């Protein structure tokens, strides 16, 4: 089977599992939502500060959710030995990688939209029309990067017992650049503080480079990584 067809098969399966089990809808979304509410409270209801840091908080909440999403997406594979079975069935590792990246990215995107919406309602953030293109581009490129990193290290961690402890340790530092870049880009898009719209595109190119690097690197490295 071609890599693309394999990826499609796997992404569809992942999305179908989520559709049926609703684990992410019921667990990760409230988690992220309550995160946002509690950020608000912990930052002591200081609305000026909140509006300033809102883009950062959205991405922070996204990142925490990323960890939960990756854990869920790979525990589905590891719980009953399905990942082993895929390897035995000779499923192309690049196909698995891209399939899981696609599934993860779609789940993340939905989550980000919800979080952004929450930021608008809860933190009084406003979205400008002329920043919308930048906003959407940022979200897509950042999401691809996050999904690639998450899948890569998720696969590594899913392999065997005890490795799972590695996931946050590897993932969080790796996605920190995404967090920073995406925060700056969204600040530009929303016009938070002194950010300029034009600055934003620089950050988007950084995010895109990151996503491509981890996408290509991940697709090559995934096979060896999941092979014990």
């Amino acid at each position, binding site marked *: *089977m071609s890599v693309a067809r*394999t990826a499609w*098969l796997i992404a569809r*399966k992942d999305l*179908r*599992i989520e559709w*049926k*089990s609703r684990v992410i809808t019921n667990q990760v979304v409230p988690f992220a939502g309550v995160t946002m509410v509690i950020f608000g409270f912990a930052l002591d209801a200081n609305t000026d500060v909140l509006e300033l840091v809102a883009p950062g908080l959205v991405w922070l909440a996204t990142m925490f959710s990323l960890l939960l999403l990756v854990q869920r997406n790979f525990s*589905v594979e590891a*719980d*009953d*030995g*399905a990942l*082993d*079975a*895929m*390897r*035995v*069935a*000779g*499923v192309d590792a690049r196909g698995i990688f891209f399939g899981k990246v696609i599934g993860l990215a779609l789940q993340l995107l939905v989550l980000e939209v919800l979080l952004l919406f929450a930021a608008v309602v809860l933190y009084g953030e406003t979205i400008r029309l002329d920043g919308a293109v930048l906003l959407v581009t940022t979200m897509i490129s950042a999401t691809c990067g996050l999904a690639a990193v998450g899948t890569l290290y998720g696969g590594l961690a899913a392999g065997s017992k005890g490795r799972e402890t590695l996931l946050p340790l590897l993932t969080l530092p790796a996605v920190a650049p995404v967090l920073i870049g995406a925060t700056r880009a969204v600040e530009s898009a929303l016009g938070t503080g002194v950010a300029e719209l034009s600055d934003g595109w620089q950050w988007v190119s950084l995010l895109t480079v990151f996503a491509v690097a981890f996408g290509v690197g991940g697709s090559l490295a995934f*096979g060896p990584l999941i*092979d*014990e």
Partner: protein
Amino acid sequence: MPPDADAVVDLHDVVATLGQFPALSGATMRVETGEIVLLRGPNGAGKTTLLRLCAGLVPVVRGTALVLGHDLSVDRDRVRSHVGLLGHQNGLYADLTVIENVRFWAATVGATDAEVASAMERMGVADRLASVSVSKLSAGQKRRTALAGLVARRARLWLLDEPHAGLDQRARDDLDNTLREAAAAGATVLVASHELDRAESLATRMVDIVAGRAESGGSR
């Protein structure tokens, strides 16, 4: 040692470790096309490890292991898509239904819907069970579903780890018939089992695994 076209599995003094433990401590074994070989031996002898090694899931530490003519330490990937493994775990997605699971595994090797249907029919998960979520199955029903997925995959080498465990009498018969047919059609079967009565009547040859080594137990 020249690769032998006829030998489907050819292990020569193979050592494999799990963690630090040498689960296989020098296994030598040869299986020809069309054989149904029973691996027997006490708990912890290394049967599961041997099967997983043949499937390319456990790396070869020493010795040579040829499967379907390919050296496992060189290109495991070439071997894999022709091998079907049923391990202690079923490899099923609990949130999907029986038919979705079987279809998924069939799709990974490009099997048709007709093959899926006949495999499910064969393992008795076709009618009421087909649209039941795997998380709602009994232990034996799960095992049958995993076997249906395997049957749909039409492997050249079947590796079965205690396939009878949990199956009822009828499913056992169905499985044995399926395996005999597959072997007759040119597939090769390795079965690890503790249910000697049934497995010995199925197998064409026995191999004893003792403390990580394989000893031919002679043909039946």
